[in-house]
Protein backbone atom coordinates (compact mmCIF):
# COMPACT_ATOMS: atom_id res chain seq x y z
CA UNK A 1 0.00 0.00 0.00
CA UNK A 2 2.84 2.39 0.85
CA UNK A 3 4.33 2.00 -2.58
CA UNK A 4 1.00 2.76 -4.22
CA UNK A 5 0.50 5.88 -2.14
CA UNK A 6 4.02 7.04 -2.93
CA UNK A 7 3.58 6.37 -6.66
CA UNK A 8 0.51 8.61 -6.58
CA UNK A 9 1.96 11.55 -4.67
CA UNK A 10 5.35 11.40 -6.35
CA UNK A 11 4.14 13.67 -9.12
CA UNK A 12 0.97 14.95 -7.45
CA UNK A 13 1.96 16.08 -3.97
CA UNK A 14 -1.23 18.13 -3.75
CA UNK A 15 -3.53 15.09 -3.82
CA UNK A 16 -5.61 14.94 -0.65
CA UNK A 17 -5.75 11.85 1.53
CA UNK A 18 -9.41 11.58 0.57
CA UNK A 19 -8.63 11.51 -3.12
CA UNK A 20 -5.86 8.97 -2.63
CA UNK A 21 -8.20 6.80 -0.58
CA UNK A 22 -10.83 6.79 -3.33
CA UNK A 23 -8.28 6.04 -6.02
CA UNK A 24 -6.80 3.10 -4.13
CA UNK A 25 -10.13 1.89 -2.73
CA UNK A 26 -8.90 2.22 0.86
CA UNK A 27 -10.43 3.83 3.96
CA UNK A 28 -9.34 7.45 4.24
CA UNK A 29 -8.25 7.05 7.90
CA UNK A 30 -5.84 4.32 6.87
CA UNK A 31 -4.32 6.45 4.11
CA UNK A 32 -3.90 9.46 6.43
CA UNK A 33 -2.33 7.26 9.08
CA UNK A 34 0.06 5.69 6.60
CA UNK A 35 1.16 9.06 5.23
CA UNK A 36 1.75 10.39 8.74
CA UNK A 37 3.75 7.28 9.59
CA UNK A 38 5.86 7.66 6.47
CA UNK A 39 6.52 11.29 7.34
CA UNK A 40 7.62 10.29 10.82
CA UNK A 41 9.79 7.47 9.58
CA UNK A 42 11.36 9.86 7.07
CA UNK A 43 10.18 7.78 4.14
CA UNK A 44 8.58 11.02 3.00
CA UNK A 45 11.20 13.69 3.57
CA UNK A 46 9.31 16.69 2.29
CA UNK A 47 6.99 18.12 -0.33
CA UNK A 48 8.88 20.08 -2.92
CA UNK A 49 7.86 22.22 -5.82
CA UNK A 50 9.69 21.43 -9.00
CA UNK A 51 10.58 24.73 -10.61
CA UNK A 52 12.07 25.62 -13.94
CA UNK A 53 14.06 28.60 -12.68
CA UNK A 54 15.14 29.59 -16.16
CA UNK A 55 11.56 30.62 -16.86
CA UNK A 56 11.41 32.92 -13.85
CA UNK A 57 14.36 34.82 -15.24
CA UNK A 58 16.45 33.82 -12.29
CA UNK A 59 19.81 33.98 -14.03
CA UNK A 60 22.06 33.96 -11.00
CA UNK A 61 21.99 30.23 -10.33
CA UNK A 62 24.95 28.24 -11.54
CA UNK A 63 25.19 24.51 -11.00
CA UNK A 64 28.04 22.11 -11.47
CA UNK A 65 28.54 18.39 -11.18
CA UNK A 66 31.86 17.63 -9.57
CA UNK A 67 33.55 14.27 -9.64
CA UNK A 68 35.71 13.74 -6.59
CA UNK A 69 38.48 11.19 -6.27
CA UNK A 70 39.37 10.15 -2.77
CA UNK A 71 42.52 8.43 -1.49
CA UNK A 72 41.25 5.49 0.49
CA UNK A 73 42.69 5.47 3.95
CA UNK A 74 42.37 3.28 6.94
CA UNK A 75 39.56 4.44 9.26
CA UNK A 76 38.44 7.13 6.82
CA UNK A 77 35.76 5.65 4.56
CA UNK A 78 33.82 7.34 1.80
CA UNK A 79 31.02 8.03 4.24
CA UNK A 80 33.23 10.30 6.27
CA UNK A 81 34.27 12.37 3.26
CA UNK A 82 30.67 12.51 2.09
CA UNK A 83 29.58 13.71 5.49
CA UNK A 84 32.09 16.54 5.38
CA UNK A 85 30.71 17.55 1.99
CA UNK A 86 26.99 17.34 2.46
CA UNK A 87 26.83 19.81 5.33
CA UNK A 88 27.78 22.68 3.02
CA UNK A 89 24.61 24.50 1.93
CA UNK A 90 26.18 24.95 -1.51
CA UNK A 91 26.12 21.18 -1.97
CA UNK A 92 22.79 20.00 -3.37
CA UNK A 93 23.51 16.30 -3.69
CA UNK A 94 26.25 13.81 -2.93
CA UNK A 95 26.44 10.26 -4.27
CA UNK A 96 28.99 7.48 -4.15
CA UNK A 97 29.66 6.33 -7.69
CA UNK A 98 31.50 3.53 -9.44
CA UNK A 99 34.16 4.18 -12.06
CA UNK A 100 37.35 6.19 -11.98
CA UNK A 101 35.97 8.73 -9.52
CA UNK A 102 34.37 8.04 -6.18
CA UNK A 103 31.89 10.76 -5.32
CA UNK A 104 29.60 12.84 -7.49
CA UNK A 105 28.70 16.17 -5.94
CA UNK A 106 26.23 18.72 -7.22
CA UNK A 107 27.09 22.25 -6.22
CA UNK A 108 25.01 25.38 -6.70
CA UNK A 109 26.16 29.00 -6.48
CA UNK A 110 25.22 32.47 -7.64
CA UNK A 111 27.98 32.69 -10.24
CA UNK A 112 30.60 30.69 -12.03
CA UNK A 113 33.18 32.28 -9.81
CA UNK A 114 31.39 31.38 -6.62
CA UNK A 115 31.18 27.72 -7.61
CA UNK A 116 34.81 27.72 -8.76
CA UNK A 117 35.89 29.21 -5.46
CA UNK A 118 33.94 26.67 -3.53
CA UNK A 119 35.63 23.84 -5.39
CA UNK A 120 39.09 25.31 -5.06
CA UNK A 121 38.89 26.45 -1.45
CA UNK A 122 36.48 24.08 0.26
CA UNK A 123 36.20 20.90 -1.69
CA UNK A 124 39.68 20.31 -3.07
CA UNK A 125 41.30 21.12 0.24
CA UNK A 126 39.54 18.41 2.19
CA UNK A 127 42.06 15.92 3.42
CA UNK A 128 42.13 12.68 1.38
CA UNK A 129 40.56 14.36 -1.67
CA UNK A 130 43.02 13.53 -4.42
CA UNK A 131 41.53 15.23 -7.43
CA UNK A 132 38.34 16.79 -8.75
CA UNK A 133 36.75 17.28 -12.15
CA UNK A 134 34.13 20.00 -12.55
CA UNK A 135 31.33 19.98 -15.14
CA UNK A 136 29.22 23.12 -15.25
CA UNK A 137 25.60 22.50 -16.17
CA UNK A 138 24.70 24.48 -19.27
CA UNK A 139 21.10 23.47 -19.76
CA UNK A 140 18.61 21.19 -18.07
CA UNK A 141 16.39 18.98 -20.21
CA UNK A 142 14.90 16.57 -17.75
CA UNK A 143 15.02 16.22 -14.00
CA UNK A 144 13.52 13.54 -11.77
CA UNK A 145 11.52 12.19 -14.68
CA UNK A 146 10.09 15.58 -15.65
CA UNK A 147 10.91 17.03 -19.06
CA UNK A 148 11.52 20.77 -18.95
CA UNK A 149 10.74 21.63 -22.56
CA UNK A 150 7.29 23.05 -23.29
CA UNK A 151 6.19 20.11 -25.36
CA UNK A 152 2.64 20.15 -26.57
CA UNK A 153 1.03 17.93 -24.00
CA UNK A 154 -2.18 16.78 -25.62
CA UNK A 155 -2.34 16.46 -29.37
CA UNK A 156 -5.51 14.40 -29.44
CA UNK A 157 -8.62 15.55 -31.22
CA UNK A 158 -10.99 17.06 -28.68
CA UNK A 159 -13.92 14.77 -29.39
CA UNK A 160 -14.10 11.24 -30.71
CA UNK A 161 -16.98 8.80 -30.69
Amino acid at each position, binding site marked *: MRKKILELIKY*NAKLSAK*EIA*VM*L*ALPVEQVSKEIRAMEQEKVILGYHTMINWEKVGNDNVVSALIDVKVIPQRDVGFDEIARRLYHYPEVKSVSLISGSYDLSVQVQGKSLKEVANFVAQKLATIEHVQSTRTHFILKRYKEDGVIFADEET*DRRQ*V*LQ*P
Partner: protein
Amino acid sequence: MTITHGFDPKRFISPTVKNIPPSGIRRFFDLVANTKGVISLGVGEPDFVTPWHIREACVHSLEKGYTMYTSNYGMPELRQAIASYLLDTFGLEYDPSKQILVTIGASEAVDLALRTVINPGDEVLIPEPCYVAYQPVTRLAGGVPVTVPTTMEDNFALTAARLESYITPRTKVLLLCFPNNPTGAVLDTDTMHAIAALVKKYNLLVISDEIYSELRYDGPPLSFAAIPGMQERTILINGFSKAFAMTGWRIGYVAAHPEFLAQMVKIHQYTILCAPIMSQMAALEALRYGRENAKHMVEQYNQRRRLVVKRLRDMGLECFEPQGAFYVFPSIKHTGLSSIEFAEKLLQEEKVAVVPGNAFGASAEGFIRCSYAASLADLIEAMNRMERFVARHLALNSGAAAEA
Protein backbone atom coordinates in the same frame (compact mmCIF):
# COMPACT_ATOMS: atom_id res chain seq x y z
CA MET B 1 -12.43 22.97 -58.78
CA THR B 2 -14.90 24.68 -61.03
CA ILE B 3 -18.36 23.47 -60.04
CA THR B 4 -21.11 23.93 -62.64
CA HIS B 5 -24.83 23.21 -62.62
CA GLY B 6 -24.45 21.01 -65.67
CA PHE B 7 -23.26 18.15 -63.50
CA ASP B 8 -25.23 16.60 -60.64
CA PRO B 9 -23.04 14.36 -58.49
CA LYS B 10 -26.03 13.36 -56.33
CA ARG B 11 -27.36 11.27 -59.20
CA PHE B 12 -24.26 9.12 -58.94
CA ILE B 13 -24.19 8.51 -55.21
CA SER B 14 -25.42 5.14 -54.03
CA PRO B 15 -28.58 5.29 -51.93
CA THR B 16 -27.00 2.96 -49.38
CA VAL B 17 -24.29 5.50 -48.67
CA LYS B 18 -26.63 8.45 -48.95
CA ASN B 19 -28.94 6.97 -46.34
CA ILE B 20 -26.23 6.56 -43.75
CA PRO B 21 -26.82 9.39 -41.31
CA PRO B 22 -23.87 11.74 -40.83
CA SER B 23 -22.17 11.76 -37.44
CA GLY B 24 -24.61 13.15 -34.88
CA ILE B 25 -21.92 14.99 -32.96
CA ARG B 26 -20.38 16.87 -35.90
CA ARG B 27 -21.94 20.19 -34.87
CA PHE B 28 -20.95 19.67 -31.27
CA PHE B 29 -17.46 18.75 -32.36
CA ASP B 30 -17.09 22.09 -34.16
CA LEU B 31 -18.39 23.87 -31.09
CA VAL B 32 -15.78 22.19 -28.88
CA ALA B 33 -12.96 22.73 -31.37
CA ASN B 34 -13.73 26.46 -31.49
CA THR B 35 -13.83 26.99 -27.72
CA LYS B 36 -10.61 27.92 -25.93
CA GLY B 37 -9.46 26.54 -22.58
CA VAL B 38 -11.55 23.39 -22.76
CA ILE B 39 -10.75 20.29 -20.71
CA SER B 40 -11.88 17.46 -22.92
CA LEU B 41 -13.29 14.28 -21.45
CA GLY B 42 -14.66 13.55 -24.90
CA VAL B 43 -11.61 11.78 -26.19
CA GLY B 44 -11.73 8.13 -27.18
CA GLU B 45 -8.07 7.25 -26.94
CA PRO B 46 -5.43 6.89 -24.24
CA ASP B 47 -3.78 10.04 -22.92
CA PHE B 48 -0.53 8.08 -22.78
CA VAL B 49 1.71 8.50 -25.79
CA THR B 50 2.90 5.24 -27.37
CA PRO B 51 5.77 4.07 -25.12
CA TRP B 52 9.14 5.21 -26.37
CA HIS B 53 10.58 1.74 -26.94
CA ILE B 54 7.76 1.01 -29.38
CA ARG B 55 8.25 4.28 -31.26
CA GLU B 56 11.98 3.67 -31.29
CA ALA B 57 11.52 0.19 -32.77
CA CYS B 58 9.61 1.76 -35.65
CA VAL B 59 12.30 4.39 -36.21
CA HIS B 60 14.95 1.70 -36.17
CA SER B 61 13.08 -0.37 -38.75
CA LEU B 62 12.79 2.67 -41.00
CA GLU B 63 16.51 3.31 -40.66
CA LYS B 64 17.16 -0.26 -41.69
CA GLY B 65 14.99 0.21 -44.75
CA TYR B 66 11.88 -1.81 -43.88
CA THR B 67 9.60 0.10 -46.21
CA MET B 68 8.11 -2.67 -48.34
CA TYR B 69 4.88 -4.68 -48.53
CA THR B 70 4.48 -7.63 -46.22
CA SER B 71 2.47 -10.81 -46.68
CA ASN B 72 -1.24 -10.04 -47.09
CA TYR B 73 -1.79 -11.72 -43.75
CA GLY B 74 0.86 -9.60 -42.03
CA MET B 75 4.45 -10.36 -41.05
CA PRO B 76 4.84 -13.98 -39.91
CA GLU B 77 6.72 -12.90 -36.77
CA LEU B 78 3.90 -10.57 -35.80
CA ARG B 79 1.23 -13.22 -36.39
CA GLN B 80 3.28 -15.62 -34.28
CA ALA B 81 3.52 -12.99 -31.52
CA ILE B 82 -0.24 -12.40 -31.70
CA ALA B 83 -0.86 -16.14 -31.42
CA SER B 84 1.35 -16.31 -28.32
CA TYR B 85 -0.41 -13.32 -26.84
CA LEU B 86 -3.86 -14.85 -27.36
CA LEU B 87 -2.65 -18.10 -25.83
CA ASP B 88 -1.07 -16.40 -22.80
CA THR B 89 -3.94 -14.01 -22.21
CA PHE B 90 -7.05 -16.09 -22.96
CA GLY B 91 -5.77 -19.64 -23.35
CA LEU B 92 -6.86 -19.54 -26.99
CA GLU B 93 -4.92 -21.47 -29.61
CA TYR B 94 -4.75 -20.11 -33.16
CA ASP B 95 -2.55 -21.25 -36.03
CA PRO B 96 -0.64 -18.10 -37.01
CA SER B 97 -0.35 -19.24 -40.63
CA LYS B 98 -4.08 -19.67 -41.32
CA GLN B 99 -6.10 -18.20 -38.51
CA ILE B 100 -4.67 -14.72 -37.89
CA LEU B 101 -4.84 -11.67 -40.14
CA VAL B 102 -3.25 -8.30 -39.38
CA THR B 103 -5.54 -5.38 -40.27
CA ILE B 104 -5.65 -1.59 -40.39
CA GLY B 105 -6.95 -1.27 -36.87
CA ALA B 106 -9.83 -3.23 -35.42
CA SER B 107 -12.11 -1.06 -37.59
CA GLU B 108 -11.04 -2.75 -40.80
CA ALA B 109 -11.48 -6.13 -39.13
CA VAL B 110 -15.11 -5.31 -38.26
CA ASP B 111 -15.76 -4.32 -41.87
CA LEU B 112 -14.06 -7.46 -43.25
CA ALA B 113 -15.98 -9.73 -40.91
CA LEU B 114 -19.36 -8.23 -41.75
CA ARG B 115 -18.75 -8.14 -45.49
CA THR B 116 -17.57 -11.73 -45.44
CA VAL B 117 -20.68 -13.18 -43.82
CA ILE B 118 -23.61 -10.86 -44.59
CA ASN B 119 -26.16 -11.63 -47.26
CA PRO B 120 -28.65 -8.89 -48.13
CA GLY B 121 -31.31 -8.76 -45.43
CA ASP B 122 -29.38 -10.72 -42.80
CA GLU B 123 -29.94 -9.33 -39.34
CA VAL B 124 -27.05 -8.33 -37.12
CA LEU B 125 -27.76 -7.98 -33.42
CA ILE B 126 -25.93 -5.03 -31.90
CA PRO B 127 -26.18 -4.32 -28.18
CA GLU B 128 -26.75 -0.60 -27.64
CA PRO B 129 -25.37 1.91 -26.52
CA CYS B 130 -22.59 1.08 -28.91
CA TYR B 131 -19.72 2.42 -30.89
CA VAL B 132 -20.92 4.54 -33.80
CA ALA B 133 -19.49 2.41 -36.62
CA TYR B 134 -21.33 -0.89 -36.24
CA GLN B 135 -24.67 0.09 -37.73
CA PRO B 136 -23.35 1.98 -40.77
CA VAL B 137 -20.84 -0.76 -41.58
CA THR B 138 -23.57 -3.40 -41.27
CA ARG B 139 -25.71 -1.41 -43.72
CA LEU B 140 -22.79 -1.00 -46.12
CA ALA B 141 -22.43 -4.78 -46.10
CA GLY B 142 -26.14 -5.08 -46.97
CA GLY B 143 -27.18 -6.27 -43.54
CA VAL B 144 -29.94 -5.06 -41.25
CA PRO B 145 -28.70 -3.78 -37.89
CA VAL B 146 -31.00 -4.73 -35.02
CA THR B 147 -30.08 -2.88 -31.87
CA VAL B 148 -30.61 -4.59 -28.52
CA PRO B 149 -30.89 -1.96 -25.80
CA THR B 150 -29.02 -2.49 -22.54
CA THR B 151 -29.92 -0.59 -19.40
CA MET B 152 -28.25 1.00 -16.42
CA GLU B 153 -30.25 -1.38 -14.18
CA ASP B 154 -28.33 -4.26 -15.80
CA ASN B 155 -25.05 -2.32 -15.59
CA PHE B 156 -25.33 -2.00 -19.38
CA ALA B 157 -24.46 -5.67 -19.75
CA LEU B 158 -26.24 -7.67 -22.43
CA THR B 159 -28.55 -10.21 -20.79
CA ALA B 160 -29.44 -13.49 -22.44
CA ALA B 161 -33.18 -12.95 -21.88
CA ARG B 162 -33.09 -9.57 -23.57
CA LEU B 163 -30.99 -10.92 -26.40
CA GLU B 164 -33.30 -13.87 -27.08
CA SER B 165 -36.31 -11.60 -27.53
CA TYR B 166 -34.59 -9.95 -30.48
CA ILE B 167 -33.61 -13.14 -32.31
CA THR B 168 -35.59 -13.86 -35.49
CA PRO B 169 -35.20 -16.43 -38.27
CA ARG B 170 -33.20 -13.79 -40.16
CA THR B 171 -30.68 -13.26 -37.35
CA LYS B 172 -27.23 -14.32 -38.45
CA VAL B 173 -24.68 -12.42 -36.42
CA LEU B 174 -24.29 -11.16 -32.88
CA LEU B 175 -21.85 -8.27 -32.74
CA LEU B 176 -20.38 -7.94 -29.26
CA CYS B 177 -18.23 -5.13 -27.94
CA PHE B 178 -17.39 -5.67 -24.29
CA PRO B 179 -15.71 -3.95 -22.48
CA ASN B 180 -17.99 -1.43 -24.09
CA ASN B 181 -17.59 1.96 -25.61
CA PRO B 182 -19.36 4.19 -24.49
CA THR B 183 -20.57 2.64 -21.23
CA GLY B 184 -17.49 0.84 -19.86
CA ALA B 185 -19.72 -2.20 -19.22
CA VAL B 186 -18.29 -5.72 -19.23
CA LEU B 187 -19.75 -9.22 -19.46
CA ASP B 188 -18.99 -11.62 -16.65
CA THR B 189 -18.34 -15.31 -17.29
CA ASP B 190 -21.87 -16.43 -16.36
CA THR B 191 -23.45 -13.93 -18.73
CA MET B 192 -21.11 -15.02 -21.48
CA HIS B 193 -22.09 -18.67 -20.91
CA ALA B 194 -25.77 -17.79 -21.10
CA ILE B 195 -25.24 -15.84 -24.32
CA ALA B 196 -23.13 -18.67 -25.71
CA ALA B 197 -26.01 -21.09 -25.11
CA LEU B 198 -28.29 -18.89 -27.24
CA VAL B 199 -25.66 -18.55 -29.92
CA LYS B 200 -25.55 -22.32 -30.17
CA LYS B 201 -29.31 -22.81 -29.92
CA TYR B 202 -30.02 -20.40 -32.78
CA ASN B 203 -26.87 -21.25 -34.73
CA LEU B 204 -25.48 -17.72 -34.77
CA LEU B 205 -22.08 -16.33 -35.54
CA VAL B 206 -20.39 -13.93 -33.13
CA ILE B 207 -18.22 -11.01 -34.15
CA SER B 208 -16.50 -9.95 -30.95
CA ASP B 209 -14.74 -6.59 -30.97
CA GLU B 210 -12.45 -6.90 -27.95
CA ILE B 211 -10.38 -3.79 -28.49
CA TYR B 212 -10.80 -2.81 -24.81
CA SER B 213 -10.14 -6.33 -23.46
CA GLU B 214 -6.95 -5.37 -21.60
CA LEU B 215 -8.71 -2.50 -19.83
CA ARG B 216 -10.67 -4.54 -17.37
CA TYR B 217 -10.79 -3.79 -13.64
CA ASP B 218 -12.81 -6.61 -12.09
CA GLY B 219 -10.33 -9.32 -12.99
CA PRO B 220 -8.19 -10.60 -15.82
CA PRO B 221 -9.21 -10.01 -19.46
CA LEU B 222 -11.86 -12.40 -20.80
CA SER B 223 -12.52 -13.28 -24.42
CA PHE B 224 -15.89 -14.49 -25.66
CA ALA B 225 -14.02 -16.94 -27.89
CA ALA B 226 -12.68 -18.66 -24.76
CA ILE B 227 -16.17 -19.75 -23.68
CA PRO B 228 -16.40 -23.50 -24.42
CA GLY B 229 -17.68 -24.16 -27.94
CA MET B 230 -17.43 -20.52 -28.98
CA GLN B 231 -13.95 -20.27 -30.51
CA GLU B 232 -14.93 -21.63 -33.94
CA ARG B 233 -18.13 -19.53 -33.93
CA THR B 234 -16.40 -16.29 -32.99
CA ILE B 235 -14.58 -13.89 -35.23
CA LEU B 236 -12.28 -12.40 -32.63
CA ILE B 237 -11.17 -8.82 -33.26
CA ASN B 238 -8.57 -6.97 -31.28
CA GLY B 239 -5.84 -4.41 -31.79
CA PHE B 240 -3.11 -2.32 -30.30
CA SER B 241 -4.82 1.06 -30.00
CA LYS B 242 -6.08 0.93 -26.44
CA ALA B 243 -3.85 -1.57 -24.63
CA PHE B 244 -0.61 -0.17 -26.01
CA ALA B 245 -1.70 3.43 -26.65
CA MET B 246 -1.21 3.03 -30.40
CA THR B 247 -4.35 4.55 -31.92
CA GLY B 248 -2.66 6.50 -34.71
CA TRP B 249 -0.72 3.49 -35.93
CA ARG B 250 -3.93 1.89 -37.19
CA ILE B 251 -3.00 -1.65 -36.40
CA GLY B 252 -5.27 -4.48 -35.31
CA TYR B 253 -5.98 -8.09 -36.08
CA VAL B 254 -8.60 -10.73 -36.46
CA ALA B 255 -8.39 -14.35 -35.32
CA ALA B 256 -10.96 -16.77 -36.69
CA HIS B 257 -11.83 -20.13 -38.21
CA PRO B 258 -9.59 -20.66 -41.27
CA GLU B 259 -12.63 -20.80 -43.58
CA PHE B 260 -13.65 -17.30 -42.55
CA LEU B 261 -10.12 -16.02 -42.63
CA ALA B 262 -9.46 -17.35 -46.15
CA GLN B 263 -12.44 -15.31 -47.39
CA MET B 264 -11.67 -12.22 -45.34
CA VAL B 265 -8.13 -12.11 -46.61
CA LYS B 266 -9.45 -11.78 -50.17
CA ILE B 267 -11.24 -8.54 -49.37
CA HIS B 268 -8.23 -7.35 -47.39
CA GLN B 269 -5.84 -8.26 -50.22
CA TYR B 270 -7.83 -6.44 -52.91
CA THR B 271 -8.68 -3.34 -50.91
CA ILE B 272 -5.78 -2.86 -48.48
CA LEU B 273 -3.05 -5.26 -49.60
CA CYS B 274 -1.38 -5.27 -46.21
CA ALA B 275 -1.10 -3.24 -43.02
CA PRO B 276 1.82 -0.76 -43.13
CA ILE B 277 5.07 -2.49 -42.27
CA MET B 278 6.19 0.26 -39.91
CA SER B 279 3.08 -0.19 -37.79
CA GLN B 280 3.58 -3.94 -37.85
CA MET B 281 7.15 -3.51 -36.65
CA ALA B 282 5.94 -1.34 -33.77
CA ALA B 283 3.19 -3.81 -32.91
CA LEU B 284 5.72 -6.63 -32.77
CA GLU B 285 7.82 -4.65 -30.31
CA ALA B 286 4.71 -3.92 -28.24
CA LEU B 287 3.84 -7.59 -27.89
CA ARG B 288 7.39 -8.71 -27.22
CA TYR B 289 8.42 -6.10 -24.68
CA GLY B 290 5.44 -3.89 -23.88
CA ARG B 291 3.05 -6.08 -21.95
CA GLU B 292 4.25 -5.03 -18.51
CA ASN B 293 3.86 -1.40 -19.45
CA ALA B 294 0.26 -2.08 -20.46
CA LYS B 295 -0.42 -3.42 -16.97
CA HIS B 296 0.96 -0.23 -15.48
CA MET B 297 -1.42 1.85 -17.63
CA VAL B 298 -4.37 -0.27 -16.50
CA GLU B 299 -3.49 0.37 -12.86
CA GLN B 300 -3.47 4.10 -13.45
CA TYR B 301 -6.76 4.04 -15.34
CA ASN B 302 -8.29 2.06 -12.50
CA GLN B 303 -7.30 4.70 -9.93
CA ARG B 304 -8.73 7.49 -12.05
CA ARG B 305 -11.88 5.48 -12.69
CA ARG B 306 -12.57 5.16 -8.97
CA LEU B 307 -12.01 8.86 -8.45
CA VAL B 308 -14.29 9.96 -11.31
CA VAL B 309 -17.13 7.60 -10.37
CA LYS B 310 -16.99 8.84 -6.78
CA ARG B 311 -16.96 12.47 -7.79
CA LEU B 312 -19.86 12.05 -10.24
CA ARG B 313 -21.94 10.27 -7.61
CA ASP B 314 -21.08 12.86 -4.98
CA MET B 315 -22.34 15.62 -7.26
CA GLY B 316 -25.66 13.85 -7.54
CA LEU B 317 -25.43 12.03 -10.86
CA GLU B 318 -26.53 8.42 -10.98
CA CYS B 319 -23.57 6.44 -12.22
CA PHE B 320 -23.11 2.69 -12.42
CA GLU B 321 -19.60 1.44 -11.76
CA PRO B 322 -18.02 0.54 -15.10
CA GLN B 323 -15.51 -2.33 -15.00
CA GLY B 324 -13.86 -1.82 -18.37
CA ALA B 325 -12.53 0.57 -21.04
CA PHE B 326 -11.81 4.15 -19.90
CA TYR B 327 -15.30 5.60 -19.88
CA VAL B 328 -17.91 6.37 -17.27
CA PHE B 329 -21.50 6.80 -18.34
CA PRO B 330 -23.50 8.77 -15.80
CA SER B 331 -27.20 9.50 -16.11
CA ILE B 332 -28.02 13.19 -16.38
CA LYS B 333 -31.79 12.74 -16.36
CA HIS B 334 -32.25 14.50 -12.99
CA THR B 335 -30.90 17.72 -14.44
CA GLY B 336 -33.91 17.93 -16.76
CA LEU B 337 -31.57 18.42 -19.71
CA SER B 338 -31.24 16.25 -22.78
CA SER B 339 -27.80 14.79 -23.34
CA ILE B 340 -26.99 17.27 -26.09
CA GLU B 341 -28.27 20.22 -24.00
CA PHE B 342 -26.20 19.04 -21.07
CA ALA B 343 -23.06 18.71 -23.20
CA GLU B 344 -23.53 22.10 -24.89
CA LYS B 345 -24.29 23.99 -21.69
CA LEU B 346 -21.44 22.30 -19.84
CA LEU B 347 -19.11 23.35 -22.61
CA GLN B 348 -20.37 26.95 -22.68
CA GLU B 349 -20.67 27.46 -18.95
CA GLU B 350 -17.72 25.47 -17.59
CA LYS B 351 -15.58 24.58 -20.59
CA VAL B 352 -15.64 20.84 -20.10
CA ALA B 353 -16.30 18.64 -23.11
CA VAL B 354 -18.14 15.31 -22.80
CA VAL B 355 -19.89 13.28 -25.48
CA PRO B 356 -23.71 13.38 -25.41
CA GLY B 357 -25.17 9.90 -25.09
CA ASN B 358 -27.47 10.17 -28.10
CA ALA B 359 -24.39 9.81 -30.32
CA PHE B 360 -24.37 6.14 -29.29
CA GLY B 361 -27.99 5.30 -30.04
CA ALA B 362 -31.47 6.07 -28.80
CA SER B 363 -31.08 4.00 -25.64
CA ALA B 364 -28.10 6.18 -24.64
CA GLU B 365 -30.20 9.35 -24.42
CA GLY B 366 -30.18 10.76 -20.89
CA PHE B 367 -26.54 9.81 -20.41
CA ILE B 368 -23.18 11.35 -21.17
CA ARG B 369 -19.85 9.68 -21.83
CA CYS B 370 -16.87 10.96 -19.86
CA SER B 371 -13.46 9.58 -20.64
CA TYR B 372 -10.96 9.35 -17.80
CA ALA B 373 -8.07 8.96 -20.22
CA ALA B 374 -6.87 12.39 -19.12
CA SER B 375 -4.22 13.59 -16.70
CA LEU B 376 -5.11 13.45 -13.03
CA ALA B 377 -4.82 17.23 -12.70
CA ASP B 378 -7.22 17.75 -15.63
CA LEU B 379 -9.65 15.18 -14.29
CA ILE B 380 -9.82 16.81 -10.87
CA GLU B 381 -10.32 20.25 -12.39
CA ALA B 382 -12.97 18.93 -14.79
CA MET B 383 -14.82 17.30 -11.88
CA ASN B 384 -14.73 20.58 -9.91
CA ARG B 385 -16.24 22.38 -12.87
CA MET B 386 -18.89 19.73 -13.45
CA GLU B 387 -19.82 19.78 -9.79
CA ARG B 388 -20.60 23.53 -10.00
CA PHE B 389 -22.52 22.98 -13.21
CA VAL B 390 -24.61 20.09 -11.95
CA ALA B 391 -25.41 21.86 -8.67
CA ARG B 392 -26.70 24.86 -10.63
CA HIS B 393 -28.84 22.83 -12.97
CA LEU B 394 -30.22 20.47 -10.35
CA ALA B 395 -31.37 23.57 -8.42
CA LEU B 396 -32.87 25.10 -11.58
CA ASN B 397 -34.65 21.88 -12.41
CA SER B 398 -36.10 21.31 -8.94
CA GLY B 399 -37.21 24.96 -8.94
CA ALA B 400 -38.94 24.45 -12.26
CA ALA B 401 -40.53 21.25 -10.99
CA ALA B 402 -41.81 23.01 -7.85
CA GLU B 403 -43.39 25.81 -9.92
CA ALA B 404 -45.07 23.31 -12.20
